[in-house]
């Protein structure tokens, strides 16, 4: 059992969990993830490690309530515990050498974009951070992100906070202003990462994306998380989760992530 040292509601859909996990805290590098298994009947859920403190032996994950399992995780309180936490899994983000970096987070993706940006910043890179949300009520980690970014841009679909528009609009604007980046890191909904990659491909900027396929074991044992990158099949849990965004088949990933969606059952009904 893993104790929850802090459960903090960040917005109506998103909860931050700080967990006592000494071994993982000692090993984790930016971009790596853990798998949480709340109780005997629960699913195994992959979540990127948003923060860690090797001294106090803690890791932090940020959960967005999307389905039954994540909803249940979001109801946990400080002092509760989680049956199983395993990690750190996957490869660390490779931003070696990049000096001018633009990190883009979309929605709960900011929970992963933030530690990546922080790590880049710590290595002395110039880091611009663009954070996009649907509306003001969904904003998370605003102060934290603002504190570590050289330039922080908040943008919302409906303009209820920050600028109005999509993260791609903010990125285009920066590029038009003459900003030069040698790396873009995009983390968020698949459609957002795909759109960012379209912009950066045209501009010839190397782009890393953090993929979020369906996973079970997270150790390369099942291939449930396989994605096509540069025409080759990769297992996101061991080869990723970060990949060169210009090589990723995003449409296939979106289709695969709908494997267990309700609309699939409708699709079966049609087939009969």
């Amino acid at each position: 059992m893993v104790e929850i040292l802090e459960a903090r509601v960040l917005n109506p859909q998103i909860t931050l969990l700080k967990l006592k996990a000494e071994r993982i805290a000692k090993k984790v590098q930016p971009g790596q993830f853990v798998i949480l298994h709340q109780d005997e009947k629960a699913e195994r859920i992959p979540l990127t490690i948003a923060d860690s403190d090797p001294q106090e032996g803690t890791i932090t994950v940020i959960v967005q309530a999307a389905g039954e399992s994540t909803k249940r995780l979001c109801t946990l309180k400080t002092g509760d515990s989680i049956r199983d936490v395993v990690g750190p899994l996957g490869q660390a983000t490779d931003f070696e050498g990049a000096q001018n970096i633009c990190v883009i987070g979309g929605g709960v993706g900011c929970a992963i974009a933030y530690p990546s940006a922080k790590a880049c910043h710590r290595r002395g890179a110039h880091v611009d951070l663009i954070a996009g949300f649907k509306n003001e009520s969904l904003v998370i980690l605003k102060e934290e992100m603002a504190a570590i970014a050289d330039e922080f841009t908040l943008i919302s679909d409906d303009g209820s906070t920050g600028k109005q528009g999509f993260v791609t609009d903010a990125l285009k604007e920066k590029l038009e202003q003459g900003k030069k980046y040698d790396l873009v890191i995009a983390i968020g909904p698949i459609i957002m990462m795909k759109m960012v990659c379209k912009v950066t491909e045209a501009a010839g900027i190397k782009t890393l994306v953090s993929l979020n396929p369906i996973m079970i074991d997270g150790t390369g044992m099942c291939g449930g998380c396989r994605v096509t990158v540069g025409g080759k099949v990769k297992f996101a849990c061991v080869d990723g989760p970060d990949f060169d965004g210009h090589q990723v088949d995003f449409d296939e990933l979106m289709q695969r992530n709908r494997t267990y969606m309700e609309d699939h059952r409708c699709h079966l009904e049609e087939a009969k």
Partner: protein
Amino acid sequence: MPNMQNEKTPMPLQEGLVRITNFEEVALGYTEEQMINEADRCLHCVNHPCTAGCPVSVMIPDFIKALKQGRIDEAYGIITKTNSFPTICGRVCPQENQCEKNCVRAIRGEAVAIGRLERYVADHHTPVLQEKPQPNGVKVAVVGSGPAGLACAADLAKEGFAVTIYEALHEAGGVLRYGIPEFRLPKRIVDEQLDQLKHLGVVIETNVIVGKTLTMQELEDEGFQAVFIGSGAGLPKFMGIPGETAAGVFSANEVLTRVNLMKAYREDHLTPYYQSNHTIVVGGGNVAMDAARCARRLGKKVTVVYRRSLAEMPARKEEVEHAMDEDITFMTLHNPVEIYKDEKGFVKGVKLEKMELGEPDERGRRSPVPTGEMIDLVCDCVIMALGTSSNPLLVRSEPRLQTNARGCLVVNEEQETTMKNVYAGGDAVSGAATVILALGAGKKAAASIIKALTPNKA
């Protein structure tokens, strides 16, 4: 006088069309009367060739003699002298290729049903907890809690070693837990075996991935004087054909993990199972049979597609028969060349190429030859059961561990790897094989560790 009946005494089974509605054990075990009838078929050969066929050398005629004379606990003692896991082996060993292959009765008729008798003993003996051995103060780490790791841990614990098993998943047992379905090996049996190990003082730490959570160096630093690696061969193979990444295409490992470890077949568990009208399972091994039989219990129509003929199928004959009784269709001499997707990216069919049998390969199996003739089959789920290879996760993190061209760990005759005091066995060394071979390798490594670390005993 021995019973000269030529056939094995049949094992009572749950009826085919009933059992596909549940996950209860299919083979129900002998009654006392059936057990006696079968035990009487053993001729008690002086040279007992059956024992030579057993990878852990169980003294078979001796246990059968004790059993039929009603001394079940003594029979259990004879078996467990060399095999710590008879409830498991009696159920899942391919006896026809091992002990029963050498049985003298098999020359004319069927072999003595050694596996079924072993299972009877294991299921009916009086449970006794073994006495805890005197600790010898030596710490040994075991990586992986599958059959190889469990066998190694059991033998070391009996000698007084302080054993800690590290397991990556949240439940111990390896393939016994996530691979072999409940209807072949009830999980309560795996739990009982683990409880016995814990009673012997073995500590099992789940959710630890050696190579990620802990490194080999850290194990050394924590005072483990030897390490046994039994991490298995868990990396699934795919065919590399067009359409293989469609939604609805799974590895058998994924399907079995969802069903067995995550209990996706139970309403009260949250892990989903993919609903289908017609599932194609590609492959002909035991894993293909397990996947097909799980799919049959959770879906509708299931077809096994295999590129050779029934005669070459590597799965146990009994498993193939059980699958057929469960209304699973077999399409032999066919091989998928493409998977068709619908506009939403879901599987809607497969293109199969007809195959012919060519010349026997170096192992004597006739190899399949493509004919160029294609047929299309409508289906909405494809399960790939093509075998597995070694998982590179551990060796990537430890350059001192050498592997061969197939990614398997290199070991010497003592089961020692290229790292001093680090031993390995089971699928991690041999590539995908059987439960009993893994048990045998774990025992052998335990013997080497005992020899290396307790010089007085040697």
